[in-house]
Each structure stands twice: as C-alpha cells, then as structure tokens.
C-alpha cells in the first residue's frame, strides 16, 4: 500500500500522542485475566498459611482441585465462549444430567463401551448446541429462554429415561475411569506416617488439553476473533463483514460440544446418574467464567481466566469446607460472601481503570 505512505503528517501525531500516554495498552481481557490469576494465587497461598493443618499443605489437595473440577473446567470453557459472543447457555447442567443417565443406561443395558458412550455424549451435547444455536442465531430468540427450555428438556428427559439413581456397571468403563496417573516423586505423608503418592485423574488431562485448544481457538483463529467481535458489538461486526448469525451459531454449537465432553467427564468422575445430577452446574460454570474475567455483556474474556476462575471458586469451596461450621447455613453464606468479594473487587478495579 504505497499510497498510505504518501500521506504523511507528523505534526498532528505529536499533538495527540500525549493523549495516548494516559491510555493503558492492556486490553480489558488481558487486564481481567491478570486480576483473576493473582487473586487465585493469593487465596491459595493464604489458605496454605492459615489452613495448612486442614489439608491445604498437602499436594494432593491441589491435585484434587483439578480432579474434582475437570468437568466444570470444560463446561465453563464452553460458557465462556458463548458469553464472549454475548449470549448465554444455562442448559449445560441439564445436558450433563442427560448425558450421564443416557450413557449409563446404554453402558449397562445396551452393550455400549467407553468409546461408543463417548460418542453418545458428544452427540447429545452437539444436538443441544445445534438446536439451541439455530434458535438463538437464526430465529433470533433470546438465548436465556432458549437455553432455559434446553435445561428443562435435559432434566425432564432424564426422568423419562430413568427416574432412579443409577450407577455404571460396565467393567471396561469402570476400569478406565478408576485409573489414575501416579505422579512420580510427589506425595504426602499422612499422620499415620504412610506415604501416599499423588494422583491425577485422566479427565484432568483432557480438561487441560481442551483449555489449551480453546485458548488457541479464541486467540489464533478468525472464528475465535469473530466471537469477540460479535460479542463486542454485533451490529458493527455485521458491517465489518462477519457472518454474525453463523458465528453465534458456532458459539452455541461449540458450547454444546464442550458440554458434551464435560458431561462425559462428569460421568467419568462420578460414574453415576440421577435426575438431580449436576443441579446448579450452569450457575457454577457461569460464576467461574465471571470470576475468570468474562463479562456477561460479551466481547471480553479469556479461557485461561476461566480455568483460574474454576480453580478460584473451587478453592473458595475448599476453604469453606475446611473452616467448617456447626450451623448449616454458614458455608453457603461464606461462599456467597467470597463470590461477592470477587465480583465487587473486579468491578471496582475495572472502574478504577476507566
């Protein structure tokens, strides 16, 4: 573009350049990510110092944070993506419950194995994603309502398939899900003096791979960037030549797919299914995304932030449990108070930055 160089004007640049000095070069996304990571590190470090005797000094405790939250990490990734696109999906808890029950029924009664049940889980997740994506993107129905219907549908279908609680009775699957990665040289000595080696579930590896994959997708592919554009301002995105409808559709599809994977990890971890399975999972995932610096208004968010969001909210839960209480109401209230602290702090820092 030679012509661009022809038009030079340096005088004006200087005038406005001092304006630029005031402006932070960090984008909103990067800024919120930094907050989340530092918050997580801070609270975990504090728990080690003050609650070390409640298990926080153990390495396994840290690994458990991952073991218990692998599914949530994957699901929250999906939610972050739809939230970045300016949409929402509250059906993930329902679809997780459906996946668990459907897979168990098939594993136990229809001779499914690990692989075919995985395919089933993906198919269910994808179906949710595709249908919801279609309704949201192409029929322009409010995502909250569409996915609320999805949530109802998922939970309701569980009851139609199997009202009872069920458990996986499939040797192959049980063997695989019981397998653990033993981490060499790491472990804790318990108070009876026994050395217990640290273990990591295979689901965690899947979750980490997915986090990296999604990070790459959001950062390095044009689809990922259009998620941000559409979330930032759909009207502008359209004018910039982005196929807004298709982008929204893909976001929901991806979220559905990740809910499928997450649901399967959930099953892989708990090996059980019921109507009540994963109640409130959607809210946990949304909370984690938000703590991770994804804005519900769209356009801002980062997958690593989401990962740390899950870890941070998981740590909060650990802390609440570790402190314990005779009165049943304190844990939830403490948890909410910490959530409140996170959210207010984030908004405070954001407004200070502006």
């Amino acid at each position: 573009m030679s012509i661009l160089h022809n038009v030079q004007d340096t005088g004006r640049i200087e005038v406005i350049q001092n304006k630029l000095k005031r402006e932070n070069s960090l984008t909103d996304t990067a800024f919120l990510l930094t907050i989340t990571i530092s918050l997580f590190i801070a609270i975990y470090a504090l728990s080690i110092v003050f609650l070390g005797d409640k298990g926080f000094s153990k390495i396994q405790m840290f690994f458990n944070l991952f073991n218990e939250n692998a599914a949530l990490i994957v699901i929250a990734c999906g939610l972050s993506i739809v939230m970045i696109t300016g949409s929402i999906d509250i059906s993930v808890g329902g679809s997780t419950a459906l996946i668990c029950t459907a897979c168990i029924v098939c594993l136990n009664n229809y001779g499914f194995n690990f692989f075919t049940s995985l395919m089933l889980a993906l198919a269910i997740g994808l179906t949710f994603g595709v249908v919801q994506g279609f309704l949201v993107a192409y029929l322009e129905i409010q995502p909250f309502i569409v996915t609320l219907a999805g949530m109802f549908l998922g939970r309701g279908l569980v009851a139609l398939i199997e009202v009872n609680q069920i458990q996986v009775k499939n040797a192959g699957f049980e063997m695989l899900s019981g397998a653990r990665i033993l981490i060499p040289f790491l472990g804790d000595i318990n108070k009876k003096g026994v050395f217990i080696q640290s273990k990591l579930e295979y689901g965690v590896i899947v979750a980490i791979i997915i986090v990296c994959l999604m990070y790459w997708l959001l950062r390095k592919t044009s689809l990922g960037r259009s998620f941000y554009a559409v979330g930032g301002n759909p009207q502008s995105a359209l004018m910039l030549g982005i196929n807004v409808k298709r982008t929204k559709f893909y976001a929901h599809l991806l979220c559905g797919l990740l809910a499928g994977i997450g649901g399967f990890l959930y099953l892989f971890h708990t090996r059980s299914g019921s109507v009540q399975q994963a109640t409130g999972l959607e809210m946990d995932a949304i909370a984690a995304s938000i703590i991770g610096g994804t804005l519900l208004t769209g356009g801002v968010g980062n997958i690593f932030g989401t990962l740390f969001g899950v870890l941070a909210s998981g740590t909060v839960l650990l802390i609440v449990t570790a402190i314990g209480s005779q009165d049943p109401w304190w844990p939830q209230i403490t948890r909410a108070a910490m959530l409140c602290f996170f959210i207010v702090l984030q908004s405070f820092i954001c407004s200070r930055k502006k």
Partner: protein
Amino acid sequence: MQDTVLTMRGIYKSFPGVRALQNVDFTLCEGEIHALMGENGAGKSTLIKVLTGVYSKNAGEICIKGINKPHIKSPQEAQKLGISTVYQEITLCPNLTVAENLFIGRTNNLFVNWKKRNSRAECILQGLGIPAKPAQQLSSCSIAVQQMVAIARAVDMDCKVLILDEPTSSLDDQEVAKLFALMRELKSRGVGIVFVTHFLEQVYEVCDKITVLRNGELVGEYQIKDLPRVELVAKMMGKELGDLAEIHNKTQSNTNDSKEVIIETEGLSSTSGIKPFDFTAYKGEVTGFAGLLGSGRSECVRAIFGADKVTNGTLRIKGEHVNITTPIKAMKKGIGYLSEDRKRDGIIGDLSVRENIILALQVMRGFFKPFTKAQAQAFADEYISLLGIKTASADTPISSLSGGNQQKVILARWLLTHPNYLILDEPTRGIDIGTKVEIQKLVLKLASEGMSITFISSEIEEMLRTCSRLIVMRDLYVVGELKDEDMTQDKIMYTIAGGETQNVQKQ
C-alpha cells in the same frame, strides 16, 4: 470514457410507515468521486445500506462490474464483490484492538498471525498518520481516531468501489485533508468512490459528479462543473436557499443587547480533566467555543451542566451562587444541554418521538406528575411542525428516524423546557445544509427573544455567523476570547495556534 463499476436501477425500499427510497437510480464510474447529496432523511444512508446488503431492497436491480444482479445479502458478500464501506455511524468493535479492527472479517484465512497483523497495522497507521498503536484497544481511542481507523480499514481493502458515508463528520481539517489526498490517490488507481457529506466545500473540493436525492427520490445526476452551489442546495431542498448574509446581520445587532449576566463561572474544572476556566454568558447573546478536536470544548459545557463531576470552582446563575452536581439541578436552574454524541448521549432509541420530546420537561416536572397523553401529544405535534421533523407519526420510535431528524427531536426536547441558557454542542453535526441554516436561524431567534445560548460547532464559519463572542480553547485550556472585529477565521486560527492560556493572562 470511463467504465461503469456500479449501476443501481429502480431501487425501492420501505420501512414500516416510511418510503425511504423510491425508484432511485445511481451510476458510478471507475476513477470517479461521486457525491451523494440530500437533506437529512433523503435516503442516502439507506441507498448505501441497500447496496452493501445491510437492508434487503424491495425492488430494483444492482449491477457491479458487469455482474448483473449479484447476490448481495450481507456486508460480507459486498466486501467480497469489492465494495468497501465506511458507514455513517462508526461501525467497529470497541473491545478489539486497532489492528484487529483493521483486518477482521476481511480474509478467508482460518488462522490469525498476530505478529504479521500487528506489523501490517503499524505500517498502515503510520502511513495515514493515525495516532494509535496496533495493540491498543479501540475503545481507548478518541472518536476521531476511531473514524480514521474505519477509513483506513476501508481504504486498505483492495476494492473497486469505496463508499464513505459522512466520514468527515468528526474529523478536523488536517485529517480531512489527509483523507482527500487518499481519495485522490485511490481515484487515480481507478477506484470508484461514493462520498456522502453535508459540507458543500468538501464536495466541490474533491468530487467529480453529484447525485442528489430528495425525500427518497432521485432528483438527478450532475457533473460538478454544471452545478453551482446555490443550485445544488436548491435541488436538495426543492426550493431556493435562504440568504445567509441575512443571518449575519442579525448577529451584529445582537451584540448591542442588554448585558444581564445569566451564567458566570470562576475557575470551574471537572473530573474530565478540563483546566479551570472563567466564562460569562449574557442574556440574549450567542457564545461559542472554538478549538481543535479534543481541545475540551465539550468538557467545558458539560462542567457547567453538571454532566461531569465538578471538582473546583464556582458557578453563578443570574448572580446567585449555585452548586450544580447533577444535570437535573442545572435543568431546574434553567440550563439546557444538547449533547454532542447524538446516538450515545442524546436519543433514547426505542422510545417514541413523543416521549423523546417531552422527556426533559417531564423529568423537571417530577416523578409524580406525568403529562396526560393528550398534553404530551400536543407538545409533540407543536414541535414536530415547528421544526419540520420528518416522522411517520409521533409514535414512531426515534431510532428509525434519519440522523438529522433525530437531532431535531432532541432540539425540540430542550426547547420545550424553555431554558434561560441553552447549550448546543455540535447541533449541526451530520445535518444537511437546509436544516443547518434553519437551526442557526432558530438560535438567533431564540437569542433575540432573550435566551442565552452557547453554540459549539466544528465549522468555524458557522460559529462566525451565529456567535457574537467566541471562547477559544487549546489542550483543555481556555486560551482566548474573541469578539466583534476580532472574530475572523485568521484570528481564531492564530489564537488556537499560539494564544496564551487564561491563567497565564491573569498573572
């Protein structure tokens, strides 16, 4: 002599209650800059949006570079066909970086190479002298820079047709000059350019041909040399233009008015960063704030209105010391403020024209005293006819009016409150020449009736015509005050360039 790149034939487009385009033809040749002119609401933006697939047309044919009836269903397809567009409202994504805004949606590449992208962007930004970093988030740039980025994006595309819908509305002279140089360069490379603006001088400076629209219908296509200004204006308005000289005369007589002080500030400053300033407004006088883009004109008046938090200084209204912390207090004291960014700070999109008109007065009346529907309708009808607002009905949502008509609605809103002191921050931005003159006349009429008015505009002539005193600003400081014979373009330029700050003068 030239090949046509674009022909539109018999375009029809209607919105609920409005016929925006009726049987419009438009032809664009290679290497030509073609002005699309018309009053507010004439249908210029609509024609452009039909062309780029934002709206689907009701009837008509489009032919691009020999492809008959190309399938343009979305801006994306328009881009693929070599049409690149800068829309009237800045249409970029505020949450992305400058570099991304330059490139997103343009390639079919699945992957993004950030390094390459940023260095390319750096190159483009530097080439155009846009003071922004590629990795900077767009929302942290000023409006003008955003507009330049939008232009840079459109220009950088390898296009056959470039459409610029009022690209200059928030640019200053140097930036406009830069843009024109760019347009000429592109023209010489055979790109056809559609240029929409309300600045007649700009049209005559760069354009080759003019197509005039009026009320959604085609008036005609003219060579620039065949159409003198006066005639162009007449064509746009469908009638002869009122005499501008007449306006000026009135202004002169204004200065002799009684000198009752309405507003007086002393060392006022606000959180927006404006430096302490002194300012006095007299009854029946039109004052103006002049300065370059971003010099803090808006900030001054916002501080008076209480729109930004005042940090220091005092404000007296009619000699009485008042403490204005919120707009409502200012309104109750008889101040009105028509804000600069119409879309963001002015209109309330989904509310009807009627509700938009009565809003400010209603708020002043209080929470428990709503107007009856009949009262509200009466107010709305009065001002719709007074200002000649083009709207299907008072029930139409304001967002479906054209930019200029929206502006009139907002003006009506403030006139309805009958303020003693009315601040008009860029009331003429994006408004056609006819309306501009009307608004200027209105300002003078109001002033002659005793209202004190502050009129801010990026067009210095406009201010010279209407204002009897000018406050000149630079870099958030008030650097001078000009009146009577000092009020010439040169003098203003000189003051902006080298005048001393108010504070320094005092010492």
